[in-house]
Structures are given as structure tokens and as C-alpha cells.
């Protein structure tokens, strides 16, 4: 059986760039990464023509694309979203569902489990956000409540595909919730919270080891009348062991803040996320749902013109970090691949270009545009 040899590219490995080497793919996996550019016998040769060869992106905190959201709950939706993001470099995805109510959550979760059981290896698992969120942050937009042990235990047992669940750590029962999730091997993350240091630390000790979308849906330091208080942001920055993520679309956060988080938390503790909604990678003109509209590349709520969510794809995030936030390209790539893979505990098979891992590979030109995508060893384009 022939294997594929990608040569003449700049390959990113965990140890750094290899300028003249080859990446061999066989049966969906990386067969080897060698230091030689010489064409091998039995190889199907792919000349990278000097391009960057990097790991495929690992996306969490991602709700939809191409006019669909995962919580639509249909195979058509899942496939459309996955394919749309795949074309933009996302080779591992954690479908995210927000506070959509019990029925929709379970239906979406069951579909996710089924697709994974049927052999879809692009799906890493389900990511749930809410309903255990701060009502002050969500401001009546969703029906939020404190964690209810009976309900979440039953959801977790019904949906073995859950890999991450976000909640506000200051809510009564939230620490028990974190402990339960951790026991089940599910990542507990803080999100949509008003927690100050004590609650963030208590949450961290109970298992909330990740902070969702830093600086968004959480307070930073603020003044109440004459006094100043730290916010959730500073608390997360103070806890070294806590990982975090940033919505790097340059809409949710200015580039200066992206650079600051990179500087303070570092590439190995910070993941890039899209928080992409229905209208990411969307070709159509009409928006089927009336609650939002697109204004100059920003998706906003019609009701109050606030940002409704992301419409970026992972490749745009990486480009933003390099070009606008002045982050070295390899660190931007790591924040989109290795770091989220580590956070979501799938680093054993994806997230870096290493022998034995899944052949999820991207080729980028010097302007950081994706020119080719391999998913599980199959060239998508």
C-alpha cells in the first residue's frame, strides 16, 4: 500500500520547525516525520512548495456554521457545520450547545453520541454551556438556574459523549457539580460568571480548571461606588494552573487584549476559540432567524445591538493572532491545536504532528491562508 509523503514544506513539530523534512501519512495516521526531503519509494509525493505544514485545528466553544447550529439536532446540521469548519482547518471539533432546554440538549447529545459511535472521528465530544450560569451576566436572555444534582447526573449518564460543561462557580452547588464532572472525566469550565477571587479559587480546587472566553461574559476589575474589586479576569490570571481561551476574532476582544492574555497566560495555557454561531462560513444572503443581523462583519442582536456571537473560523483566529496581536506564528498555531487538544484531553491522538497521531494536517501559504486540508489522512482539498 502506498503512503503519502509531504515534502518541501516547513513542518511544525512540538520541538519546533523542520525546514527540510518529510511527513509520511499511512492509513489515516502520521507514519513518520523525517529530517529528509528526498523522495521515497512507494510514496505518493506531495510537494508543499515551501508552505507551512501544521497540525489541524482543534475547536471547542463552537456552535455552528453555514446557516446551521448543532442544537438544530439533525444529521444534516452536524454534517454541514463540520464540513464548513473543516474547509477552514478544523479537523477536530467539540460541538457546543448552549442553554437550549432539556429536550433539545438531550436530542442533540444523543445524535452526537450516535455519530461518534458510527465512526465519526472528527467529533471529539459534546460541549455544553449552561443552564448553570449567572443570571446577572445572561440578563434574561436564557433560562438559567443553579445546578440540580438529579438532573445533571441523569444527563451525564444519558449522554456519554459529553466532554466539557461550563458553569458559573459562584452558584450554590457549583463546586459539587465540578467535582462530579471531574470524576466522570468531563472538563468543568467557568463561564458566564460574576465570581471574584474566592469563588474562582474554590471552583478551581473543586475541578473548574478552565476559564471560558476570558474577558467575555465575566467582569474584570471594576468599581462599585468608591471601591475597586477584582473581577473574574484577574482571579483567573492569578491562578497559574487554570487554563483559558480567548475569542480571537478581533470583535469580541481588541488585539491588545489578545496579546496581553498570550503574554500573561502563555501559549500553553491559552486556547483560541471562535464561539462561532450559525452564520460563520455562511454563503447565503438571507438570515433565516430574525434575532440577529450582520453589521460590517459582526453578528449582533437586533434587540440591543450587542455582539451576538462569533462568525469566524479557526483559520481567521490564527491569522488575527499573528497579524494583529503580534504573536509568533508557531504559538498561534499551538493555541489553535496543541493547547485545546491538551485541555480537552485528546492530545494522545490529535493536536500535534507526531508519529502515530491522526493525520490531521493543514498546509498554509506565507499569508497564513489554508491551501490544503487532510482529515484522517484523506485530502479534503
Amino acid at each position, binding site marked *: 500500500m502506498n503512503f503519502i509523503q509531504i515534502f518541501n514544506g516547513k513542518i511544525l513539530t512540538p520541538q519546533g520547525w523542520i525546514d527540510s523534512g518529510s511527513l509520511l501519512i499511512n492509513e489515516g495516521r502520521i507514519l513518520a516525520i523525517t529530517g529528509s526531503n528526498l523522495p521515497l519509494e512507494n510514496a505518493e509525493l506531495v510537494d508543499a512548495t515551501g508552505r507551512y505544514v501544521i497540525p489541524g485545528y482543534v475547536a471547542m466553544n463552537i456552535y455552528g456554521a453555514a446557516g446551521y447550529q448543532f442544537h438544530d439536532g439533525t444529521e444534516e446540521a452536524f454534517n454541514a457545520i463540520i464540513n464548513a469548519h473543516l474547509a477552514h482547518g478544523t479537523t477536530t471539533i467539540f460541538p457546543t450547545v448552549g442553554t437550549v432546554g432539556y429536550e433539545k440538549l438531550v436530542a442533540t447529545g444523543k445524535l452526537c453520541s450516535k455519530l461518534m459511535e458510527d465512526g465519526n472521528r472528527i467529533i471529539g465530544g459534546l460541549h455544553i454551556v449552561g443552564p448553570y450560569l449567572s443570571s446577572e451576566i445572561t440578563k434574561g436572555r436564557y433560562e438559567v438556574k443553579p445546578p440540580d444534582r438529579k438532573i445533571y447526573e441523569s444527563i451525564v449518564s444519558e449522554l456519554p459523549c459529553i466532554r466539557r460543561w461550563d458553569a458559573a462557580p459562584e452558584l450554590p452547588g457549583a463546586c459539587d457539580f465540578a467535582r462530579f464532572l471531574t470524576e466522570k472525566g468531563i472538563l468543568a469550565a467557568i463561564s458566564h460568571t460574576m465570581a471574584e477571587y474566592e469563588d474562582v479559587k474554590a471552583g478551581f480546587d473543586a475541578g473548574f480548571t478552565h476559564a471560558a472566553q476570558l474577558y467575555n461574559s465575566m467582569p474584570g476589575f*471594576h468599581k462599585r461606588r468608591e471601591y475597586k474589586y477584582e473581577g473574574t479576569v*484577574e482571579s483567573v490570571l492569578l491562578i497559574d494552573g487554570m487554563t483559558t481561551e480567548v475569542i480571537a476574532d478581533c470583535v469580541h476582544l*481588541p488585539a491588545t*487584549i489578545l496579546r496581553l492574555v498570550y503574554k500573561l497566560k502563555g501559549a500553553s495555557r491559552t486556547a483560541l476559540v471562535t464561539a462561532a454561531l450559525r452564520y460563520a462560513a455562511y454563503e447565503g444572503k438571507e438570515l433565516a432567524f430574525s434575532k440577529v443581523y450582520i453589521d460590517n462583519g*459582526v453578528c449582533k442582536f437586533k434587540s440591543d445591538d450587542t455582539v451576538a456571537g462569533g462568525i469566524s473560523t479557526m483559520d481567521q483566529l490564527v491569522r488575527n493572532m499573528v497579524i494583529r496581536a503580534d504573536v509568533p506564528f508557531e504559538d498561534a498555531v499551538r493555541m489553535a491545536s496543541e493547547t485545546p487538544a491538551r485541555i480537552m484531553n485528546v492530545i494522545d491522538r490529535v493536536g500535534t504532528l507526531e508519529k502515530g497521531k491522526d493525520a490531521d494536517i493543514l498546509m498554509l501559504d506565507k499569508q497564513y491562508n489554508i491551501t490544503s486540508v487532510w482529515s484522517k489522512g484523506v485530502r479534503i482539498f
Partner: protein
Amino acid sequence: MLTQIINGIIHTPSGWLKDGSIIISDNKILEVSNCDRPVVGAKIIDAKGMYITPGGIELHCHGGGGRDFMEGTEEAFRTAVATHMQHGTTSIYPTLSSSSMPMIRAAVATTEQLMAEKNSPVLGLHLEGHYFNMKMAGGQIPEYIKDPDPSEYIPLLEETKCIKRWDAAPELPGATAFGRYITRKGVLASIGHTAAEYHEVLEAYEAGFSHATHFYNAMPGFHRKNEYKYEGTVESIYLIDDMTVEVIGDGIHVPATILKLIYKIKGVEKTALITDALACAASDSQEAFDPRVIIEDGVCKLADRSALAGSIATMDRVIKAVTTQALIPLFDVIRMISETPALIMGIQDRKGSLRKGKDADILLIDKNYDLCGVIAMGKIIKPI
């Protein structure tokens, strides 16, 4: 005359030194020795196991003991300086908040007079204002606030020598030119009472504004304007590594978690601790120079409680608050009141650490972080 301090734990640049001694001759440290045997002719001071540290260098203080530097008189200055010295401040930059030119001139005259005295703890004048962003005025007197005015500041700096630091909001028209000019005159330019965002802070830094006034106070952090988010002055300062900051260490102006964060991110060598004390510090006085200011809950505020307006802290209270509330090690807290301010003001050749040849400014601090003794320029100010 030789004095030898023994039986204490000495704060040296290389760490705590036990079983050593400091030998003082006149107003200088003659030696820091790792030996505590009595030296011939030395008067012995037994430190009773306490910490022996460099004296506090105050970068930002408006008054104390009931007197404010803005009064401008020799008596006001002497009272305030002596008060703070009892509390651990062995060197000080008297600070004026936004004032009129006649007030500034009066304070300049008094400062120059005091600086000329032998062993003076007064090292220079600090002007906090009046070129500030009105929206971030806080406790500053609004009537005096204006845009940088070269017809004012140029003659002032040409004709006087004692102004060592001047704070301004860098986003104001003419602020960049102001920064460049005063830097050339050897005056430290500091950004304060500002709403500058990153590009303005960077431009200011490049024009000479290398320090930030009471970090986190009178400056915005990350915020939202309509649908978009913006970095604030705080984040911009974190992004510029070489910019130094000062932080009010009373435990009230900046909560303990943020003190910890600043220590973590900016670090000891870039962070100085200040009191930003008003006249009512270390006194029974309940009044401030500014009639709009009240004292409540251990801090000064505007009567409408919209902003804090300065502290009633003294250096010893800062040491205690930062060690016990923010849990920063005493060793580093001491550096932030001595070594770092000395570096920021460029006086590290003679002040800021216990080293042979430097001025004999020494504090004795007990195990509870309470100040028990003060020596300034070799003279015992507060006996153990």
C-alpha cells in the same frame, strides 16, 4: 561616631543576613558585616531579633500630621515630613496635587530651602497635576486642571531645580511634547489621571513617560463602548514591560488580590509602593486641604462617595497591609518601598538598600511587621 546594630535579620540585596551587623559612621553605612562581634569604639544597638531594613522612600505623599504640602509653608512641610519619618519614611518627595502656579512656586521655594539642609530627607518635589484628563480627575481640584501649557512649564523648569517628577495624562494635546521636554530636564514623567488606551500609552512611553501614577486608580481597565470592547490604561501598562508603576499600599485603594496580581505580573523591580497620604494621615485631624474630601472607613473619599481621594496610611501601615493582606513576602515588600523607588528616581547610588557607602536610613521591624525603630541619615528618629 560609630554605631553598630546587632542581633537582627538584615535585609541585603543578596537576601536576609543573620548574625551580622551594620556599622554606621556619621550618616553613612560604613559596613554590612556577616560578623556581629563588637567593633572598637562602636555604640551598640541591640535589634532584639527584629528585621533590619532600608528606610522607606516615599514617591507620592500629600501630607501628614494635619499639614498638607499644598500649604507651601516651611512649617507645613516640616510637620508632614517629620510625621511620616516617625512611621518609616526616611526619604520623601513631597507631592502637590493639581495646584495653581503661585501655589507651585511657593512649594518650590520651601522645597529648595529644605533640600539644602544637611541630611535632609526631602529629595525633591513631585507635581501630581495639573495637566490631567478632567474625566479622571477623582480627588483632584478641577479648577486648576488644564491642558499642558508650555508658557507655564518651560519657565518653571528653567528657573527651578527641585522638581523631580511631574504627572500628566498623555492623551491631552501637547502632552507628548511635555513628556519629551521634562525628560530632557531630568524630571520623571509619569502617566496619571488618564483614560489613555494602548497606542497613546505606547506613544507616551516613547516620549519619556516611563512611570504610571497610582496604578489601577484614576485610570480605566478593560471596558465596553457600545458593542465593542477596548483595553484600558491598566492593560496597556501591563503590555509595556519597562514601564514602572506605583501602587497605593493601604489595602483599600487596591484590593489585596490586585496587589498580588501586580506583584506577579509587573514584579518587584517595576513596582513601588506608596501611601498617597493626605494631611490627615497620622493625625487626629478629620479635615483635608480639599473641603470636598471626607474621611471614612480608614480612607479619604469625595463626600459624594464617587471616588477615593487619598489615604490616611503611612509607610509602616503600607508594609503591614501588603504583607498581611496580599501575602507578599516581607523581603519583596521592603524592596518595593526602598530599592525600587530609588531606582525609579535614579538615586540608587546612595539610597534604597543596606550597602556599604549608602546613606544610613534604616528601619527596625518586628515579627508582626510592626515598625519599631527608625534611623535617618545615621540619627535615631524613633528609638526601639
